[in-house]
């Protein structure tokens, strides 16, 4: 647990979008899925997830509906809307550009003066 990385601000939303883009999930499922795809490298506080989910619903990126979980519990399932899908693609591209730039910047060697 101790070597889990802290989440950068603003990245939680993107992670949630990614998790949901792979298929409809309930809130707890989103947590599990994020743990799975990050190999448990990122720590997400359980309580912090829900405000993020509600925020994305309000922005129209996610839609929610009640259903039944794999072990027969009533749960609310989230999936991407069309806008959500579009936003997810844009944010992914943006993140990749940033990451590439950051990686390049950090990899740069000092030139001889």
């Amino acid at each position: 647990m101790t070597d889990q990385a802290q989440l950068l601000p603003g990245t939680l939303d993107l992670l949630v979008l990614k998790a949901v883009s792979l298929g409809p999930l309930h809130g707890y499922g989103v947590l599990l899925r994020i743990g799975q795809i990050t190999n448990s490298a990122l720590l997400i506080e359980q309580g912090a997830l829900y405000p993020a989910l509600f925020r994305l619903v309000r922005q129209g990126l996610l839609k929610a509906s009640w259903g039944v979980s794999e072990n027969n519990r009533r749960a609310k399932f989230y999936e991407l809307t069309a806008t959500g899908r579009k936003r997810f693609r844009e944010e992914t591209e943006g993140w990749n550009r940033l990451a590439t730039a950051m990686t390049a910047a950090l990899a740069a060697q000092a030139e001889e003066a």
Partner: protein
Amino acid sequence: MNIFHRSPRTEEMEEELLSHVQLRADDLERSGLNHAQAERQARIELGGRERWKEECYQAMGSSFFESLVQDIRFALRVLRKSPGFTFAAVVTLALAIGANAVVFGIMDSLLLRPLNVPQWESLWGTMYGGNIAWQSYPNYIDLRDHNHSFEDLAAFGMVFAGLDTGKDPSVFNGFATSGNYFDVLRIQPYLGKFFHASDEHGRNSAPYVVLSYAYWHSRFHEDRSVIGRVVGVNKHPFTIIGVAPPSFQGTLVFVSPDFYMPIVNEEQVTTEGLLSARGSDHAVFEVMGHIKPGVTPAQATADVNAVGASLEKNYPKEVARGNTSLAHEGLTSFGPDLKGFLAGLMLLAGLILLAACANLGSLFAAHAADRSREVALRLALGSSRRRILRQLLTEAVLISLAGGAAGLWASVVLLSRLGTWQPFPGTAVRIPVSPDARLYVVALLLALVSGFLFGIVPVRQVLRANPYEVVKAGSSRRLGSRMTLRDVLLVIQIAICAVLVTASLVAVRGLVRSLHGNYGIDPRNTMLASVNLAMAGYSIDKVPGMQKSMIDAMESIPGVEHAGLVNGYPPLVYTAGTRENVFKTETSDLRNSNAAANPYRYEISPGYFAAAGTSLLAGRTFDWHDGKDAPPVVVVNRDFAGKMFGSVNHAVGSFYKLLDGRRVEVVGVVEDGKYQNITQDQQPAMFLPSMQSPANAFFLVVRSHRDPQQLAAAMRTKLHQLDSGLPVDPKTWNELLSVVLFPSRVATMSLGVMGMMGAMLSVTGIFGMAAYSVSKRLRELGIRVALGAQRTQVLQAVLGRTVKLLAVGSAIGLLLGILATRVLAYIVYQATPRDPLVLSGVVLAMALLGLVATWIPAQRALSVDPMMLLREE
């Protein structure tokens, strides 16, 4: 509205969080924990619920309204759980807001919008009273034509006339107005038309009557065909030409006339020569008009006084002039007194509000202290302090809204009743108050402001609260010996209450004193009947004979001891009084500045003094020989005798000169009295024989020990036998005195109510404090009793502090009350709190209040059963 039910969104959110916990618990259970452990672990992982909930609300948007709804729901639940606290707080606030709303409503109606006419802000008029020249018609005409400040000037006076519509004749009250009256006021008729300046073509040229809406409604049942009908006004034919709009009730705030008639026709209805007499002081009541744009009221006043000065120069004999000041039309000479009275009342009402706030502040502080455990728990569960403060303020605002609404409702009921109240049945006197939008706004603001004021009292307490301490230590915090905020609040409250009690006792004493003052008359067992022979069409030369037969008829009624009459109005009736300059015999230039005195002037018949109960100090009174051709004689009061001749004995047999130049001989001196109102200083007065200056409007004065109703019936029968067309309505002198006593009665009543409210507030305040301190210390008391404490020791332990605070507060309040004499003097006549009776009364009242308020807590403290209490813990 589902504000008070859980919103579906909240419900859904709760459900979702629950489902999360279950899913997580299922997983944990699979990993080996037992069911209970798994659930607990799942909940802990989710973290501070309160905080997440709040963040979720924010994330869902529109959070303000929803969390407001949440706050309100929660506040309602809390308030329902402590009904005693809620009830006390709401009632306290309702009392305070009610008192303030009533006073403000009266002030708003009477001072802030005195007349219901367009652009009343620029409508200014002369104030009635004093030696102001504008009470005669010729002076009004000159002022109208020679001033440079007014767009136009109208004048009006009051008339009482007999109205004959074919059915039984009745007296009605009206205004005789200049032709331009309605045009100056810029109002339109409700029905028919008004008369105008163009209708005036000299004396008796405009026999028209405009009815007030109220009179048209009550007497003619809104019959539209009355327009054009000819009616008899004092037997003269007048045509009804219109009805005034319902919103217009004349130009005097306290009088609503039944009708309006052109002043050029007034002589037909009242006395001959009224309009031509420049020295008259009862042809015109007030002169008024809209000030021209760009002219200030001060300039207009100077202008009016300049015209007055030139009139005084041109007519030195007739025009006696004081300095005129202008006022917004409507309140006239009542204005300054009324303003002082209402300001004083507003101050007291403000004190009530302050006391109520102090009361509520300590209630809230106690309430918050009781809830410190709950607050601590919520803090520990992750709720933010801001959120908790918001919660507390929501409770305060809810209480202030409930209290404000209740107070407002009560005040609206009271004001509406006041507005329809007729303090003197059968007269046109009214108190035109009505609640309006401004009142609602002010009451609401007051309620909210005081809500926030007392709502923030416990804030410090909450902010300082350390959740772990409170939860660990429990609620039995020890009461320290330090002065706490609540102590200060209680002292303030008691001090304010003592001021109010002082004020009301001072007022009661003042009223008692003025009721038992010496008026120079004995109003008991005396009947007055207003007679106007003009109403029955008598010419002036027939008046003395008729008067003599009337007095004879009155004396022939069995049980009547004395009967007489007085021209115009008797002393202390309708605050009417006529004054006239008198001169030394050697003065030949009878101008105003040469006058020796300015006494009240009464014209009386033989028998008047005996009937009025005025005692003769020296000389003689009049008899029937003091008629038209007898030498002119006069009776003066002691004050007049002293001022003019040095002493009572010197006065009898001395001479002086009247304004008309006649030399009169003083034949008698009577005791001093009050003439216009009971609050005035002693003034000189002179009494002339009515037969030497006959008038057709007078009051019969009849003294008898018979039952007033029987006597009134007998008088009516006798007068009816003399002339069947004469409307008369005998009343007791005391009944008519109620008009002059009205202001002090009202003052006493309102101060009494304020005092009672203050007393109630302090009782609840002391009670709250005492009860709280007893309940907090029950366990300690139990131990003390178990260890053998005496009853007095128990009482001292638990109530000593409260009693000490009560004493301190009362002393401060009494001191303030004494210092506030000047304010009180505005409100009541002869306000002297430096009166041993008042001082001891206040001390006694406060002690009694303290006793009443601590009685129940003391009983509770004494009935402590140590065994029970100790077992409970």
